[in-house]
């Protein structure tokens, strides 16, 4: 087991490195000029050149790579080109927002999806069709469309939930949840659909297993068969799917944060992309990847708890 965790961690570090390298290469693949970005309008080419030199942009690529990599290991991404602030500080300010959204959305998707999937699996053909139709439907509705519509009805027309803004957890759980309600629901619906399908087929598959017959043959009550044995078996693919969903939802938060004016990582990514703020871009990618890696690690451990084959390895 410790070996297993170490292996997962090693893969995680590899992933972060890959994310960093990929972004580094992208940033350096075209004739980008951070000096021009930093100095903004009105700077002469000479000034831009001086600035690029000062930023070390003209050094050999490998030197820059080694240097940046060394800093990245310390989570040091340097200064933003636009607002000159420390990238790590800014992103760590924003991380809780995105983490809140995506964790809550993943949880909601997991709970709602599993419930729907279980119902679909055990309630017979009609319910299964309804759930399948719902999930097909919600998989196809773009979150940015749904978000706008939800805001229009729930925030503007009905005035039930806030349309924008983020309230910190430390300011009270109630307002925190309220401020996240619409974004989280918007994000979670698609995830719930995926999880529902996964859970339904997992349940159905589990219920068709030979050991279910064994359990029946010794008179095990049906609820136990369904909710202890089959559900636990189905929870393995569901937890696996949640890992993927978390990545998807974490990425999806870019659009959602923009839509709901939430000061998260996704918003920074968008600003970074529109502003050519390369340090922010690299920081966002590395930090997001780190979050995904850690989440996956947690889910891996959860899988190991659920699956004795992994635990006893």
């Amino acid at each position, binding site marked *: 087991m410790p070996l297993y965790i*170490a292996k997962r*961690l*090693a893969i995680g*570090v590899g992933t972060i490195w890959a994310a960093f390298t990929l972004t580094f290469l992208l940033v350096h693949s075209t004739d980008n000029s951070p000096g*021009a*970005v930093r100095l*903004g*309008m*009105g700077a002469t080419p000479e*000034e831009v050149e001086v600035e690029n030199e000062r930023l070390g942009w003209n050094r050999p690529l490998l030197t820059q790579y080694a240097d940046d990599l060394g800093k990245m*290991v310390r*989570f040091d991404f340097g200064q*933003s080109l*636009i*607002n*000159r*602030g*420390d990238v790590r*500080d*800014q992103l*760590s*300010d*924003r*991380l*809780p927002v995105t*983490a809140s959204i995506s964790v809550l959305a993943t949880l909601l998707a997991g709970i709602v999806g599993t419930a729907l999937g279980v119902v679909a699996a055990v309630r017979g053909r009609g319910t299964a069709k309804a759930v399948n139709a719902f999930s097909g439907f919600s998989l196809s509705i773009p979150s940015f469309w749904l978000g*706008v519509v939800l*805001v229009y009805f729930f*925030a*503007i027309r009905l*005035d*039930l*939930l*806030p*349309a*924008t*803004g*983020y309230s*910190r957890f*430390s*300011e*009270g759980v109630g*307002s925190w949840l*309220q401020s996240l309600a619409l974004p989280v629901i918007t994000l979670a619906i698609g995830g719930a659909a995926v999880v529902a399908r996964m859970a339904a087929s997992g349940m159905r598959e589990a219920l068709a297993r030979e050991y279910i017959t064994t359990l029946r043959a010794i008179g095990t009550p049906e609820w136990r068969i369904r909710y202890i044995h089959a559900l636990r078996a189905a929870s393995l693919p569901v937890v696996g799917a949640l890992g993927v969903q978390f990545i998807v939802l974490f990425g999806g938060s870019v659009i959602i944060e*923009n*839509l*709901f*004016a939430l*000061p998260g990582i996704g*918003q*920074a990514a968008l*600003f970074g*992309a*529109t*502003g*050519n703020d390369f340090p922010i871009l690299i920081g966002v990618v590395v*930090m997001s990847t*780190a*979050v995904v890696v*850690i989440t996956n690690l947690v889910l891996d451990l959860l899988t190991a708890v659920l699956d004795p084959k992994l635990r006893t390895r």
Partner: protein
Amino acid sequence: MKQSSRLLRLLAVLLALVLVTAACGDNDDDASPGAGDSVADSGDAAPSGDDSGDSGDAAPSGDAAPSSGGLTLTVALESDYSPATYNPQAYALSQFPFHSLLYDSLFVTTSDGEIVPNIVTEFATNEEATQLTFSLREDLVFDDGSPLDAELVKANLDRRLEEDLRSYSLFGEGQEGEIADVVVNGPYEVTIHWAFEQGIANGHEFLADNVGAIVGPNGAADSTTLETAPEGSGPYRLDLDASTRGATYVLRKWADHWNADAYAYDTIIFNIITDAQARANAVLSGEADLAIKIEPNQINQLESEGALAKIGGTVAAVNVLDKTGERVPAFGFVETRHALSLAIDRQTIVDALRPGARPTVQYFPEQAVGFDPTLNERYAYDPDRARELLASVGLEDGFEVDKVVLGEPTDVELAIQRMWQEELGVTLNFPAVTNTGELFASVNTTAIIINEWGLGLRPAGFVAGPVTSGFMNTQGAESEAISSVLGPALGGNPEALVALNNALVDEGWWIGLYETFTYAGYNPDSIQGVPFGGISGIVVMADVEPVG
């Protein structure tokens, strides 16, 4: 083996780092007293809607904002007003609503549109108007105890040649407010010597708002120190821990400020909401008390809720950058520029897209001295004449011109594109860039820009600045008609102002489109209204008052 254990340690550190940074972000505020409860007491834990304007505090979801008690004002801004540095001198007047709370300014614009002394106790201009002498309050200090005195004002103004300080550009060489020297007369008395021989009659107006804002001694010595934190003596302090750069700024009142009583709110939160609809939503659903600015698409929505305020003085125009025809040869002819102007059906644009705006071809707003109604008649919509003009310079088949956009073009731009295409066969392309850097750089390569300009209280200054010698004229094109009247116009001569207006339009440097309003949204249940600083179009934050 050794290597792998090192790897493991590295992993552990990485993991810990991420967890800590994640945790910190959320827990920072635990340090601040949980007195936020008092707000919740006076208000409600209930969702938005039912704030009956009782205590006039911010909307419910805003009221949970970190505060040490008292009133909170939440403002939604359309962009980060302090994106690169906290130095007010690096920004234009339109960003001043934010900086006005952190810095004391020598003079300020009031909600009557007048410029009055702020930390200046008295001021005087000599007879030739070549010198301005003023005295400062003597009780002004910064957080570290250092005083705001004459030496510091001089230190601030002496940085006028620095590239980054855009506001100070008007003090620069050859500019309308060029300063020859700043002399310290006493600990709290300063005299400014203007460089213009004819002097500047209302020189104190140059030292107002963002231009007159005084940064502390460290920032004055090295402006890069302002990149991470503000250093001002103003009525509020920025709560860096509670703020997220580019997203949320939390300002807390500084009780020891000399004018603290004039400010109604204990906490002011600025939320950056770039999405126009989201900004309007924020006001409507109560997360913001005030939204600066509101886009035309959202006007109806806010108006119907009685949540809209507006102020005139904004002019929209096609600004011709390529006056020499270097970039697009067609623009070398003044006829082309006039033809483009004549082919725009401004009334239709205004009716359809900018209801409430006024069509105009000229530079000066209607309320400003220098406005000339005859200009609008001379350049009224006349596509036939436009075609003739183009034909007269051999361009009857039209030409192509680019207008660089960030993201997608506006509805007005699309309308102009259509009109030029249909009337003149001129193709307007919108090459898109993904970042502001490229957008700004495009002034060096493209022929036109299209924009709405809030010209402020001294429109002539804008001509002297960007229009003739700034980013709108990177080619350095000369116009005798303009330069000959610019000096007197800057001095406030009414005839010269009219002449300047005519020259800009006749030269085809300025193709006016319409004069419109600056809009702001507000929550009428929580604040009394939006105090605009006259046609400068900015909101005077000091005058924002809670209901009741």
